[in-house]
Each structure stands twice: as C-alpha cells, then as structure tokens.
C-alpha cells in the first residue's frame, strides 16, 4: 500500500503512517526487521547470481567468466540456489511466521534476543557456507551443498530463530486455533528434524550407496513442500480473510487439507527418482503420493479461489497490493499441485526427467507461490511495524509487474523448454548439439526473466529500505495495550 492508496487499509487496523504499535508488535519489531532486512539482502545477491547463471548457461562461448574458477557454473548455480532458499526463503519466513503467530495468539516475544541471536547465527553460517561453495568446498547434494560443519550451526540457529511459532502456539490464550497456525507449526516442527536427519544420513554418516540419493529426495521434497509450501499456505489462510474481511469458503475442509498435505508431502520425494537405480516399490510410492497430493491441493483451491470468487473478491484483490501478490501466489499453488500430480506419473515423467521441467515446478512453488506471498505479506506488515508508508507507488508497480512477468516468463521457459528438451532427449537420433541449439531460445527468455526479477527485487528493496530508514517512530514511543 502506498501514499496514493492509503484509503485501502484493511479493516480494524490503524492506517499506514500511524506509529502506534501494540506491545506484541513492539517486542517482535527488532527480530522481525533483522530477518526481513537479511532476507532482502540475500534475495538481491541471489538475483544477481541468477543473472550470471542464466548468462553462463546461455553462452555458447563459455560466458564472460570462463577463466574464473570461482565463478564457474557449478559454483554460481549452487550458491544462487542456496542463497535463494536459505537466505531469502528462510529469513523471510522466520519473520513472517513470527509475526503471524504473534498476531493469531497475541504472543509476546519476551526473549526476543534469542531469536535475534538465532538470526545472527543463521546468517553468519550462511555467509560462511556460500563462501565455501565459491571456494569449491561443496558436497554435491542439491540444497545440502554447504560443507557439513555448517549443518549443525544452521540447525541450532533454526531452533533459536524459527521455533517461536511452537512456543506461541503453546502459550496462546484461547483454545481456538486457526489454519494458519497449523501450517506454521507444522513447518516449524518438521523442518529441523528433517534437516538433521538428512545431514546425518547424507553428510556425517553417509548411508550405503543409492540410499544417500533416496534420503536426499526425501529431504528436498520435505524442504520445498513442508517449509516453503506450508509456511506460504499459512500466510494465504491469514491474509485472504483478513484483508477481504470475510471467512474462508469451505473452511470446515481446512483440517482435511492440512492433514492430507502433511501426510502425503513427505512421501513424494521418490517421484524424483523414477528410472533411477532404486527399488521400483519406492518409485511407485512417489508416484502415488504425488497423485494423492492433489487432494489437499483441491481443498485448498476451494478455500482460496472460493473466497476470492465471491462478492467481487478478485476485483478487490487486484486493487489491494497485498492481495494482488497473495492471490497471484494462490493461483500458482493450484497450478503447481496439478502439474505435480500429472508429472509424477511414469509416462510424462519419462519425458521431463533430467530436463529443466523440475526446475520450472520448483520455481512455481518457491517463487510464483511462496515468494509472491512473502512480498504481499511484507506490504501488509511493514507499514504496521515501521509506522511509515511505502515511499513510492511507482516502485510498488515496478515490483509487481517485473516479478510477475519475470516469474511467468521463467516458468514458461523452464516448463515448455523442459518438455521440448525431453522430447528431443527421448529421440536418440537428436544430438546434444541440436538440443543445446534449440534450448538457446529458452535460455534467452531465462536471461531476460532473470533481469526482470532483479529489477523487481531492486524496486522492492529500495522501497522497503527507504521505508525502514525513514521510519521516524521509535518503537518505545508506541502504544501499549
């Protein structure tokens, strides 16, 4: 929301620019801003690296950095992926989850310094891990590339920074619980266990042979679905009714959505191993779980799209900055769920396996859904915590259009390009040179979309940092209730 759009503030809240903060907000302001500022810095770094990755992947001459070992494709791609996931995704969700649970449970963060300490550890470990990747000290397992000594530090930091939602849930003053709380608690509880087990079985005491790959597929599906998916779903379940001022359609189905999502998500990993030298029963479980995941996706679609479709919800969503981003994400989640179910089956999977298609699905989940929801949440929360308005309406528009177009372009390029690549790979008479040549068009689209996303992120960062800097209301001057 901007100065030009200040009449559109959600119901029951002070308008933006109002420096009065509740005691709850005063207490979480410090840790929230630490996580938020860190997340945006990492997002910018990941976006710059994404441009370099797309240039390197698209350049037939080896790219401008061909003689620089530090910036070889295998280093930059791994660093970009980790920065986006652990730098942006985790810091931003630490902030959002903390805020959501404190709002829903009126939780007072009395020992906020612990969360701050966790945030400092998290970001220091992340910095060290990324430097090590550039120095060539990586493990070879996607999203576990950091040297193994980073793992325990990240796990401890998570417990300090990301475990608060569970404390907030335990201390909530009423017996009533909400869908947002379930998803946040689920994400906050499942991730550290998954991460520690994956670290143990892959890096510290490696399991035998291909069991490492099986454990890795289990970890990645948990990370993407249970951390990114669950946390972002929690935010949508909160912001849709909050901003629209109505209840979620078919809310009575939400518990089924939560439990079925949690139940099936953990089994979907082996769908990424179809055709691999792992037992067939394992691959079949992955296929079945991927297909079954459509159940929570359909229920969630009924909840989200039903709410948005009644009483001019879509039109209101389009005219509200928060909801514009959040509803974009809600649509992306439905698309992700449908694609995930269809492409878990052996037939389509055999075509898209080893192509950019999987990266397209991940981009749909982690960017078009989770990241867009995070952006929307920031537009709602930051004015309340800083007591300032977003400095520039133009930058908000640039942010939305650049990220929306960049996301759509990159996802289309990865999915359609991946399908095309898969069709060519399936034909043994088509050489790799021909496949690379066909893929160069899609690489150009990916480079343009990477630049678009960078532009959008810079616009968002300028606006957000400008707002935080100009925030004139010291937290101590806030309203206490």
């Amino acid at each position: 929301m901007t100065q030009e759009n200040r009449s559109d503030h959600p119901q029951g809240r002070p308008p933006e620019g109002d420096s009065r903060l509740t005691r709850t907000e005063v207490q979480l302001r410090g840790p929230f801003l630490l996580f938020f500022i860190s997340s945006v810095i990492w997002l910018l770094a990941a976006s710059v690296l994404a441009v370099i990755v797309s240039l390197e992947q698209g350049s037939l001459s080896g790219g401008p950095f061909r003689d620089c070992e530090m910036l070889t494709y295998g280093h930059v791609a791994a660093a970009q992926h980790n920065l986006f996931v652990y730098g942006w995704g985790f810091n931003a969700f630490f902030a959002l989850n903390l805020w959501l649970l404190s709002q829903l449970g009126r939780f007072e963060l009395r020992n906020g310094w612990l969360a701050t300490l966790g945030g400092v550890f998290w970001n220091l470990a992340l910095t060290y891990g990324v430097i090590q990747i550039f120095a060539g000290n990586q493990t070879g397992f996607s999203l576990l590339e950091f040297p193994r000594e980073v793992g325990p530090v990240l796990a401890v930091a998570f417990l300090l920074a990301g475990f608060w939602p569970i404390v907030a849930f335990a201390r909530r003053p009423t017996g009533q619980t909400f869908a947002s709380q379930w998803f946040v608690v689920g994400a906050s509880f499942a991730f550290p266990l998954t991460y520690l087990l994956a670290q143990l079985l892959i890096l510290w005491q490696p399991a035998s042979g291909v069991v490492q790959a099986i454990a890795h597929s289990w970890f990645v599906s948990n990370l993407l679905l249970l951390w990114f998916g669950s946390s972002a779903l929690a935010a949508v379940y909160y912001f849709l009714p909050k901003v629209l001022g109505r209840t979620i359609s078919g809310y009575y189905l939400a518990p089924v959505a939560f439990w079925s999502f949690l139940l099936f998500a953990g089994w979907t990993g082996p769908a990424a191993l179809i055709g691999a030298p792992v037992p067939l029963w394992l691959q079949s479980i992955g296929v079945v779980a991927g297909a079954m995941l459509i159940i929570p996706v359909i229920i969630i679609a009924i909840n989200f799209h039903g709410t948005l479709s009644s009483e001019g919800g879509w039109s209101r969503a389009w005219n509200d900055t928060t909801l514009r981003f959040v509803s974009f994400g809600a649509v992306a989640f439905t698309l992700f769920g449908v694609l995930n179910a269809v492409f878990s089956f052996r037939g389509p999977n055999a075509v898209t396996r080893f192509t950019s298609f999987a990266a397209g699905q991940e981009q749909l989940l982690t960017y078009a859904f989770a990241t867009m929801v995070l952006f929307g949440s920031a537009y709602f929360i930051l004015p309340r915590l800083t007591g300032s308005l977003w400095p520039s309406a133009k930058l908000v528009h640039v942010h939305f259009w650049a990220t929306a177009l960049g996301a759509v372009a990159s996802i289309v390029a990865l999915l359609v390009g991946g399908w095309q690549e898969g069709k060519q790979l399936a034909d043994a008479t088509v050489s790799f040179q021909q496949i690379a040549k066909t893929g160069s068009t899609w690489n150009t689209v990916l480079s343009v979309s990477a630049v678009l996303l960078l532009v959008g992120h810079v616009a968002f960062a300028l606006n957000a940092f400008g707002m935080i800097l100009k925030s004139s209301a010291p937290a101590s001057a806030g309203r206490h209730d």
Partner: protein
Amino acid sequence: MKNLNIFLAGIFLAGAMPFGALVISSQMQLGPLGPAPAEEGGPLFPSREPGLSIQGRAVYVSLGCVSCHTQQVRPAGQGSDIARGYGVRASVARDYVQQKPVLLGDRRIGPDLANYGARASKIDIDALLRDPASSGAAWHPYYSYLYGRSADGKSIVPSERAVALVAYLKSLRQDYSSPEAKLKQ
C-alpha cells in the same frame, strides 16, 4: 488440534512414517549390498576405486559438475539412455556401493557420465576440459584453469587436479555384468 502435544505427535508421525518407509527400509534392503560376481567364481564388481579416482571425485564435486551431469542409465522404455549409448545396460543399486558420495544427479545439461570412461579416451577428456569448443561441446564450461604451461612455456601441462579429474572420469564404467544386470553375451 487444540492440544499441542497431540498436535505435535500427529505432525511427528506424519513425518516419521515416510522417513521410516522410504529411507530406513531402503537402507535395510540395499544396505547389505556389496561387490559381487555376476556368476559364481567370477570377478567382483564394482571394483574398488583407485586413490587417484577418489581424489578426482572430490574435484568433480568441488567444481559442481553434478549440476549438469547425471550418472545413471535408465532402463530401455524409460527415455533413450541405452539407445544414446550412455550405457550397455540400466544402472542398478549395486553399481554405487563403492561410491562416496553417490552422484546420481537430476539434470542433464550435458550427457550422462555413468559409463563415460568406457566411451571416452583420456586424450578426449583432457581436450574437452581444456577447450570444449574445439571438442564440439561449445556449451560446456571451460576448465582451462586446471591446466598450466610447462617450464619452457611450449606445452600445456595438466595440474594435479586435472590428472585426478580425468582419472575419475575415465574410471566411470558400468559395462560389467552384475547379479541384477547381466550383459547379453
């Protein structure tokens, strides 16, 4: 969902079941696998990796080669791996029991390398790493920094890392019979 303990127990169970069924039972099924002869009295495969190959694997991991190359040949009927000449048979779990870490990979920006050592010579691999464009793989990253000049500056000399990496790539072979995947005579 109002009782935290029951709620967390539910979440824990929902996470523990797939972990137990997917990871623990896989370890129970595949953990005992080791090198074995295809037929009684035959040689054991996969054979133990030489030290230089193990060093080369570390270079492969360090450079992030796994982000573009897989090391797994799918069975006929699932993709064209065998028709493309990536291998003479599908990969099986036993092929990987000596490998730490196992680098199956999930993206093929470049070709599969499970059986690369059987189809490429050391000279080919050296040339590809040093100058991919001249080797017909212009999209491949340059690894010219793994090579230096001799003292007189007249010839190109591979670094220790390049020697190890080439030895590792040359060691990648799945062209032997194993109990689960016998080669046709």
